């Protein structure tokens, strides 16, 4: 019977494929595995450039910064990750606190100002970003709104239902950790509760969608990171978007870093360190400021002229390595109802 032979062959073929699949799926030992909490659209090109420059093949897990850090903690010693690349000093700090990161060589770490790296050399910032209030000037005027003087004023009823945030995003989580460190646990929890009660509009982990909602007039303002605006303006120079930096060293003007660390369990620490060093190379640093509109963390890079110079932002006094208690922050955000 022809048909049964065909089925039989199909079965045989499947068995062979199933037997071979795990072997081919297994990464070759030379492949560097990067767990990235930054999106592919932002860092995919620079990772490709790393492979082109060094010839080191790379595979990347993309995800949410906290989730990917969590994943490493869950995997423990089994983790295939060699490098963790996240967009929040807090997540890096949490991994360092769990003894998951190896010390980086001084010649890599010392390129970066102490404010933007771990005091023990366990992680290093690779680009900096500012927290900011983004607003739609036309809509703010139309609604007769005043721009708030502090992030704490966003709980005012005049902003009810008018402010957007991205509570699942790592940068927002770091913002909450900063509030906890600067104002205390109770005040931070109260701020979250008041924001939720004020019907703040959630955008999940998605700051781009928050910016787009402000640009197209769905909401007049939102708290986010600074760099999303320039990508949208590049596509549409007419987009009604503007930045407002909270004055007076307000917690809402936190400067955070995206950064990287090498896993203590990495089976190829040298290539992993090479990747971190590459992120700090002039090429990568220039990419960050030109293409992702972030602030470079080494000297001698020409700042993207669109960006507000860091020196002019009144930054709150906080040590980024104090943001490492991510766990308490995540619990606080979850219990506030911000994620619902």
């Amino acid at each position, binding site marked *: *019977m022809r048909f*049964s032979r065909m089925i039989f062959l199909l079965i045989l073929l499947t068995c062979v494929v199933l037997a071979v699949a795990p072997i081919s799926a297994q990464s070759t030992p030379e492949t560097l595995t990067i767990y990235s909490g930054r999106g592919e659209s932002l860092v995919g090109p620079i990772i490709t450039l790393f492979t082109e420059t060094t010839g080191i093949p790379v595979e990347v897990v993309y995800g949410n910064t906290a989730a990917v850090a969590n994943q490493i903690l869950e995997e423990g010693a*089994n983790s295939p990750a060699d490098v963790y690349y996240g967009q929040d000093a807090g997540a890096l700090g949490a991994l360092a606190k769990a003894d998951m990161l190896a010390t980086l060589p001084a010649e890599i770490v010392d390129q970066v100002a102490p404010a933007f790296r771990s005091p023990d050399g366990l992680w290093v910032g690779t680009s900096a970003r500012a927290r900011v209030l983004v607003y739609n000037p036309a809509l703010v005027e139309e609604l007769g709104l005043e721009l708030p003087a502090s992030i704490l004023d966003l709980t005012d009823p005049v902003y009810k239902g008018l402010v957007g945030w991205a509570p699942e995003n790592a940068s927002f989580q770091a913002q909450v950790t900063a509030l906890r460190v600067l104002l205390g646990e109770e005040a931070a929890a109260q701020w979250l509760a008041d924001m939720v009660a004020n019907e703040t509009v959630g955008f999940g982990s*998605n700051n781009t969608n928050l910016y787009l909602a402000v640009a197209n007039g769905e909401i007049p303002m939102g708290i986010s990171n600074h760099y999303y605006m320039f990508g949208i303006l590049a596509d549409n120079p007419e987009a009604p978007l503007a930045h407002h930096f909270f004055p007076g060293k307000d917690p809402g003007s936190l400067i955070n870093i995206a950064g990287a660390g090498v896993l203590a369990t990495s089976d190829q620490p040298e290539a992993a360190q090479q990747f971190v060093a590459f992120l700090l190379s002039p090429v990568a640093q220039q990419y960050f400021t030109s293409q992702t509109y972030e602030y470079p963390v080494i000297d001698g890079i020409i700042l993207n002229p669109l960006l507000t110079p860091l020196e002019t932002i009144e930054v709150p006094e906080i040590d980024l390595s104090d943001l490492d208690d991510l766990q308490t922050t995540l619990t606080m955000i*979850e219990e506030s109802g911000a994620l*619902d």
Partner: protein
Amino acid sequence: MCLLDGLLVMTIRTRFTGLKVISFLIIAVVSLPLIYLVLRASASGIDGINYLLQPRTLTILSNSILLTIAVVIASAVIGTLFAWITTRTNLPMRRVVLILGLMPMVIPSYIGALTLVAAFGPVGYLQQILEPLGIRRLPEIYGFFGASFAITIFTYPYFVLPVRAALLGMDRSLEEAAQSLGCSRWQIFWRVTLPALRPSIAAGALLTALYTLSDFGAVMVMRYNAFARAIYVTYNSSFDRSRAALLALVLVALTLLLVQLERRVTHKAQTYRAGKGTTTITKKLRLGRWQIPAFGFCAVLIGIGTLLPIGILLGWALNPHVISPIDMKLGEASWSAVTTSVLTAVVVALAALPLAIVARRTTSYWSRRLVNLTYIGNALPGIVIGLALVFFGANSMPALYQTLPLLILGYTVRFLPYGLAATGSALAGVNPAFDETAQSLGLRPWQRLFRVTIPLTWASIIAGMALVFLNTMKELPTTLMLSPIGFVTPATRIWMASEAGMLALIGLPGLILIGLSCVGLAILLWRDNLKG
């Protein structure tokens, strides 16, 4: 091959023992996710119970139940009406209307929801059209309304198919009798037609309810805090992953309840069947002045559910100004999705065959009972299977972690019920005497399997495989959680692009996905034609 042969030789010596051994192995593997979920959730002990006793859990539970009820009622009304119009009236172009009306089945809910937001969002395309009229924004689409709207639009076909089948197979003499007794058309519909449709509507309702509870895409896009979203967000934004497992267990309990309900109803439904009766085709109801409203109803449904999403995807795909900052890897993604889906379909079909034989051909209470366990896939939403297998892979089986086999295992658990239903129903139609005769003629067990059982059931098996293929192609949550590193499918690329706010980039992968799903659907329809 030798192993296969050996196990099947056991079958001939001790009737079905070999198959039972294989079946129990399959059942053990398939129950892994649930076992791991319970282990992981129970690890949190008393804290876990306290966590679940928070009002938040109750809110998520009531959100999910509310959504399910709304979707079931709305889909039932729309689906039944649509099925009735396309089978019983003289609506022009009925076949085209029917096929277009079934198309939403191949549109994944996340694509549907994304295009609905693009069209009907506060400042979507509709608002832009209405802008000259001074309308600055439309009412909020996000939340309960948007989620139930999106899921309804993409689930009503689940009612159309069974209701249409029931309408076609109905004993028409009952309606004619009612007519001769002086009932109006309306009275006939309420007092004769609708009661006869009750079993099919009930079956559609439970299918839709299960679909709604497990839906991930629409509730994520519409930001509605039902279980699937709550589990995903908790998993992503909490250090204590046992919390996600706890929420998942509550969802499993809820879906198990529904599955139990379904078994009761479908069991009862069999007693309702009217037998062959007379299914002679009587003349279609003349719509007369109702023709325009009936046509309008179908047009709106097709417009929103089929033409709008495909149109918007086309618009995005053809927009020359869209430049992707990254490589979308669509060729690679499509190839991965097709091969994995075919592989899953084959694995499911292979796993379903022994299970179905044991369930149908043995009399042992326990074997039947155990085979029923595999239907648990129906009660395990993709997000839950993904979560459970991540725990399993990361902690107990690092060799399998982030590999294709684990992903395919996830798909298999999820879609095994489809394969079982297809193979099981086909086996029910095969006289066991054929197999026994072949045995008495000295055929070896594997010869019997290939020369008797499979040739008699292959059309149904292929249909089951097509269904599994179709669903694996568009699967999102399990894929997101279990993908090997670097593994991409059109579904995960769409998800990535929408997360990055680059909606226009989902145009092409969206169309590819729908196109490939249509292939699966075509196989299903082709098999229907085969049956005559």
